[in-house]
């Protein structure tokens, strides 16, 4: 009985979370574009009216996705993938240019972005690939095939000049990691991304201090003893002394902490590297080497940034990284977005009472920056609720993925969670100034049919697979 009733087997927690987000998203779009003259919620000339129509259509899509047999997705995974790759190629020739990227099909009133749906195809294809009998990511050839499946759409989307959308594909590292990809790739991928952003965003002194503390903590994790850590700190202080004294004597009264820190920590790490190699102490050479490489990497990023880039290029990177400068300059959007969210306070200004978002201080307030309306009108409480809903959804998706018997469903589940996570992390992160400004929508919240349908199909395909988790799929 239970085995055969798809609807009873659906995970209703996910569905309720989905409905909550779509409804909350619509309320915020309504508020963001609210206009006393047009307050009929079905007014199709207004964004909330259109969004309402698209929500209705999305629900129909969800129903359709659930009704289809789950074997259908498994069987046609590669076909779907091929179809979307084809669309990505076609859009290069026949697409419409919007905001500098040629990534939209426009047929009459209907606009559609294949890059969005290509993620769906890629998720299906990766799931299919990894669930192949006897497939192992330890084999070099398999690694290459997986990389190819992911990088082909990335290349095509970059050709459309839509780097933001292409970046999303990096998140396929997560399902690959879950399926046995070397953890080091995940670690160093994340580590150097953070290092790169950190060395541009943080002050040099803060950067070195954080790096030092981090290295010492990792060293303690492996050594489980404080004594050698203390010795290293003492060594560092001893080596920094001559530099500090030099600074005081030769300087013009100012004390350059960065000068002292960078030289003494570099020398200390060199000494330590030499000593730990000679004494064959486990893990320590690697930690000190990573520390040294990190310092060199950060200094060269800084140097390259200041030395080789023109001011306007620096601006653009600063902009990408969301670094605040002149409020009307590169960081303007992020700054206004933070002002809007910050002005919400603990309980928010109330529904329809936001001023920053409504009066266009925040750009794209119903699409990429929809979270500003949440922050301004619903305050910390509302923001917390939305973040919690997303984290709950992600945790729930991982739990569902883990209960799959079929590897195909599990990989697909992780892909869905990973894609949602990337959108959630980058979108909300950029509105509060902790992530670079990349124009990607907040799932279920942002205005726009194309992205809502994509996320709906993605989520409900997994729910459909989950509903038939007890069946043999291949």
């Amino acid at each position, binding site marked *: 009985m239970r085995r055969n009733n798809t609807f009873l087997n659906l995970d209703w927690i996910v569905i309720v979370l989905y409905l909550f987000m779509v409804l909350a998203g619509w309320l915020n779009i309504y508020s963001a574009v609210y206009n006393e003259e047009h307050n009929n919620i079905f007014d199709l000339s207004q964004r909330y009216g259109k969004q309402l129509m698209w929500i209705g259509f999305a629900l129909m899509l969800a129903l359709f996705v659930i009704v289809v047999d789950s074997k259908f997705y498994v069987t046609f995974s590669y076909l779907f993938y091929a179809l979307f790759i084809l669309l990505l190629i076609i859009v290069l020739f026949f697409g419409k240019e919007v905001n500098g990227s040629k990534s939209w099909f426009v047929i009459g009133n209907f606009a559609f972005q294949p890059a969005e749906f290509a993620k769906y195809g890629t998720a299906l294809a990766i799931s299919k690939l990894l669930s192949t009998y006897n497939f192992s990511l330890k084999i070099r050839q398999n690694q290459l095939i997986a990389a190819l499946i992911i990088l082909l759409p990335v290349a095509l989307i970059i050709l459309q000049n839509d780097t933001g959308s292409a970046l999303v594909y990096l998140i396929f590292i997560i399902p690959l*990691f879950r399926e046995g990809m070397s953890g080091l790739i995940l670690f160093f991928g994340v580590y150097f991304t953070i290092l790169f952003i950190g060395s541009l965003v943080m002050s040099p002194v803060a950067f070195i201090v954080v790096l030092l503390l981090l290295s010492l903590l990792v060293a303690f994790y492996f050594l489980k003893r404080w004594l050698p850590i203390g010795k290293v700190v003492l060594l560092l202080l001893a080596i920094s002394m001559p530099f500090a004294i030099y600074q005081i004597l030769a300087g013009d009264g100012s004390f350059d902490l960065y000068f002292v820190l960078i030289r003494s920590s570099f020398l200390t790490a060199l000494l330590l590297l030499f000593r730990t190699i000679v004494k064959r102490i486990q893990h320590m050479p690697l930690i000190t080497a990573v520390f040294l490489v990190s310092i060199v990497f950060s200094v060269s990023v800084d140097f390259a940034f200041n030395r080789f880039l023109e001011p306007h290029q620096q601006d653009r990177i600063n902009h990408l990284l969301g670094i605040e400068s002149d409020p009307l300059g590169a960081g303007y959007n992020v700054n206004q977005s933070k002002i809007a*969210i910050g002005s919400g306070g603990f309980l928010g200004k109330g529904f329809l009472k936001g*001023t920053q978002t409504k*009066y266009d*201080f925040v750009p794209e307030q119903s699409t990429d920056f929809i979270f500003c309306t949440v922050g301004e009108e619903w305050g910390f409480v509302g923001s917390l609720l939305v973040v919690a809903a997303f984290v709950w959804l992600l945790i729930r998706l991982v739990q569902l993925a883990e209960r799959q018997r079929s590897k195909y469903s599990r990989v697909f589940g992780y892909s869905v969670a990973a894609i949602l996570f990337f959108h959630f992390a980058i979108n909300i*992160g950029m509105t509060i100034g902790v992530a670079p400004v990349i124009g990607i929508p907040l799932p279920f919240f942002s205005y726009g049919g194309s992205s809502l349908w994509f996320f709906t199909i993605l989520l409900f395909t997994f729910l459909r697979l989950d509903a038939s988790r007890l069946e043999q799929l291949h």
Partner: protein
Amino acid sequence: MDSYSKRKNMILLIFIVVGIVFVIKLFTLQVISSAYKKTATKNVLREVVDYPSRGLIYDRNGQLMVYNQAAYDLMATPREISVFDTLELCRLLDVPIENFRIEIQKAQKYSRFKPSIVVKQISPERYALMQEKMYKYPGFFFQTRTLRSYTYSNAAHVLGYVGEVNQSLIDNEPYYKSGDYVGITGIEKAYESELRGVKGFRFFLVDVHNRVKGSYENGQLDTMSIKGNDLVTTLDVELQGYAELLMQNKAGSIVAIEPASGEILALVSAPGYLPDDLVGRKRIENYPKMAADSLLPLYNRALRAQYPPGSTFKMVHALIALQEGVITPYTSFTCNHGYHVGSFSQKCHHNQAFQLTGSIAQSCNAYYSYTFRRILENPALSGVRQGYERWREYVVSLGFSSQVSFDLDEELKGFIPNSDYYEEHVFRKSRWRALPLISLAIGQGEVETTPIQMANYAAILANRGWYYKPHVVKSISNGNVHPEIREIHRSKIDPVHFEEIMDGMEYVLDPNYPGTASSARIPGIVVCGKTGTAENPHGADHSTFIAFAPRENPKIAIAVYVENGRWGNLYAAPIATLIIEKYLNGEIQPSRKYVEDNMLKTNLLYPELPNYIRYSK
């Protein structure tokens, strides 16, 4: 179970850590930091200033002298400007294209979202012309301001002008904001707080394009502007105009006061300028030219020119001597072509003895040398120094050596040296003697007085010993009158001593006597006057005259200075009596038309013109 299932924990950890980071960041943004809330309010709140119209200014007879006229500032919001034909816009506005470009750049620098003024004070005519073309220039709009406008082309110095506030005023007085107007000289400055009114503020919620979206807090914080108070001046604009006409082509000044009230009827500094010349954009063009003019048209001589008073000062000594009892009206001194003591001579041109009235009528230097010496060497006092100090007290009580007017802030104090000054510069620890001070007897030497002080002194003579502070504003529309202008200042001279002085001053204009200004006599009006010559080390001396009339119940007291006019009877006396006659009779009688013609024709500024009278020593 597969071998990598533990990795799910790592992945969950990443999700949860990101969630926690967001919550912490949101907490600091929304709950801990208050900066964002303030900026948010600043973002959406636009304060719109409702500029009050400045108070109107009337003359004593209710003639409107100063009013307001609309002018328009062209504003630009850089963000909204699209490509436009700069050349055509500049032609329409009649401004140089380079200046316009600079202003646009400044506006962009200030803010891309908020409007700035790019062209100031466009006339209503040009504004009307431009209105229909504005659709071509998105991002530009007009803001209405008011400019001063004048019914009469007179009294520019008294009225003063209005200009934009400077940075130091903005820093010191929070009322003023950049771009506000403020009175800079004259009445506009002295009565700024009455005239300016109260700015109104309306608060609006605006969007990022500065477009108004609604009122803030339902307008509860909005205030209406309150119009400035109107002023009624003491000036008689007709008399002022006539006085200015008489001073055309001459340098000098005229101050006429109503003795019974201290009200200034006319105040002229010549050469002057037209009030319109310093309004709005014209000021930018005219001011530097005027400031560079060697005839100093911007300089208010009536208040700021400090001349040695000359013979008009003689009655001061007579009054003090009478009060101190060192002479009587019948004390007689002999003029032997002057006053001679040893090698010292104070020259004069008589060979006869004078009593008080005669000495005034004929302005005898010798008489006053004797009199002044008696004041200094007063036997009742311990010596010359004390005699001088006593004399100075009387002089100060007659309104000299300090700002005598109530509301003409630019006025200088003049100079009556105190005894320390002579101690330091003349006697240098030696014994005080009368002779080194004797030139004061004929109003020369170290003393300096301003024309307005001399007019006030004429008013004291007319009042027999007291005065109200001369002032130029009679009443304010809100009913405020400063009590100080109703305060009587009494000199240290008893009223009884004035009769003989008045006799002498009446004889000054009496041809039978003959007085020094008998040619200026007005048939039918008893004028008391006194001629003078103000020493001028830089060129020809200045012609001066003080007078009041009629003798009984005086209606007008006047001081006239004509620079380089040599003697009082030449220009200052005829001009003074013409003004008196005009004021008292409303017109000049036919028998005196030739005097008026002469004065009108006289040109002392440009020697090449035919009426210029050349003097040589």
